[in-house]
């Protein structure tokens, strides 16, 4: 049987358990909503302004840098798996590949994008 079927079963069972726990909680708990109780929590004072605040653009840059490294792992893992059978040429090739990536990181760094301004 396909092993991914088991992984799929894990997904299903992994959802059943929390759904069951939350469902039991939903059945057992009291339900007495009122406007004060349901208002957004803000340390006891009346909520001011929007709940969805603007976020810092800096997060976006970190996410972009992450994306580059994350995609690269797709190329590096097969290289690491077969490294034992490959010669010195493959090692040097892999090192050059990583160095190109690190060059991107260094560029980001030099541009001051890694500073939390």
């Amino acid at each position: 049987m396909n092993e991914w079927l088991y992984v799929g079963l894990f997904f299903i069972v992994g959802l059943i358990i929390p759904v069951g726990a939350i469902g039991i909680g939903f059945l057992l708990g009291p339900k007495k909503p009122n406007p004060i109780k349901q208002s957004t929590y803000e340390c006891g004072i009346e909520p001011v302004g929007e709940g969805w605040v603007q976020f810092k653009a800096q997060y976006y840059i970190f996410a972009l840098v992450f994306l580059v490294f994350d995609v690269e792992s797709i190329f590096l893992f097969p290289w690491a798996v077969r490294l034992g059978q490959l010669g010195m040429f493959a090692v040097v090739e892999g090192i050059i590949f990583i160095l190109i990536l690190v060059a991107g990181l260094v560029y980001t760094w030099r541009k001051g994008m890694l500073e939390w301004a």
Partner: protein
Amino acid sequence: MNFWNDPLKVAADWLTGIFTGWGMNTVVANVLVAFLGILMLITILMVIDIFLVWIERKVVARFQDRIGPNRLGPFGLIQPFADIIKLMIKEDTTPDHADKFVYNIAPMLSMMSVLILWAVVPLAPVMLGVDLNIGALFIIAAGSIGTLSIIMAGWSSNNKFSVIGAFRQVAVMVSFEVPMLAVLLIPTIFAGSMGINAIIQSQNIWFVWLSPLAAVIFMIAAIAELGRAPFDLAEGESELVSGYNIEYSGMKFGMFYAGELLHAFTFGGFWSIMFFGGYRFFGLELVSPFLAIAIILFKAMVGYWIIMWVKYTVMRIRIDQMLAFNWKFLTPVAFVLVMVTALMNTLLRGAPSWLFITGMLLSNVIVAWVSLEIVRSVSRKERERVEGPKQVVAEAHH
């Protein structure tokens, strides 16, 4: 083949026999048996999770010079059950203008992302779980669902604190995933496979002796992924009150809490699998599968204990410090380590094992020493720039 040598297979054959005896299709019977097995594993995990609550509370109490829960049952062992009952009979509130669907599904995803990690954990030589040939990548991929659940929870709650907490947590998680991916390459290089069981089987020498620096970086990245102190600023009590889970109550909050504890335990397990031989311990794992399970759970508990030790010892750091620590220190060091390991692995191929271990260990020590030395000199320059040159206090002569 008896029950004590391979309990899972004996039980599965027995159940499959029963189900096919009822006139069920063989494939359906197999799927049903697998379903029951997974249900059993996850139930056991949930029970472990309940006791993790107790362990966590007891350990934090000891670190803070308190006694901890001690009223209910011997050593307060019943306390977590009382906690669960309390969480279950709490009112389940939803804040105004919350995105209901996303808000409700986030805690379930949070728990699920942890539980599916155990699909690839081999508990014993005969209980491999799902032995995926891309196990190392599966760990990272499944962990990303946890990131997703946090941003869902933070965004859907319609609360300033939760949105800010979620952004911080996601920034931390995506950042520290990079060094974690890099150091996962190192066991992959040594084992020549991404499969978790292949990695365990090739650890005749624990990989921590070949690459202690990789083990340390993996642990730091794991702690950051878990969002635990010193990287727990997503729930910094003094500024964000509780972070992304601020509006959750009752069992939904319980799911986040239990998921976090089980996640820490799971990463303790992965630490032991990647660097400490998983279920292997000087051939003891071959004696009985039950002993192998005990070994891997013990090792996972040791990893979990280290995570707790760090959590209750180290102070929380700021987000700029944390991101700088990751991108300017941990990521470059991890990639340098990968390059050095690849190079040494090829250079020392065919060398006797003592030479291989010494060479690897030495290269790790050199990488660690050089990187710490660079950090020291840079931070000295930075300190002098901020504070001016160091004041030399004239020594008083009598």
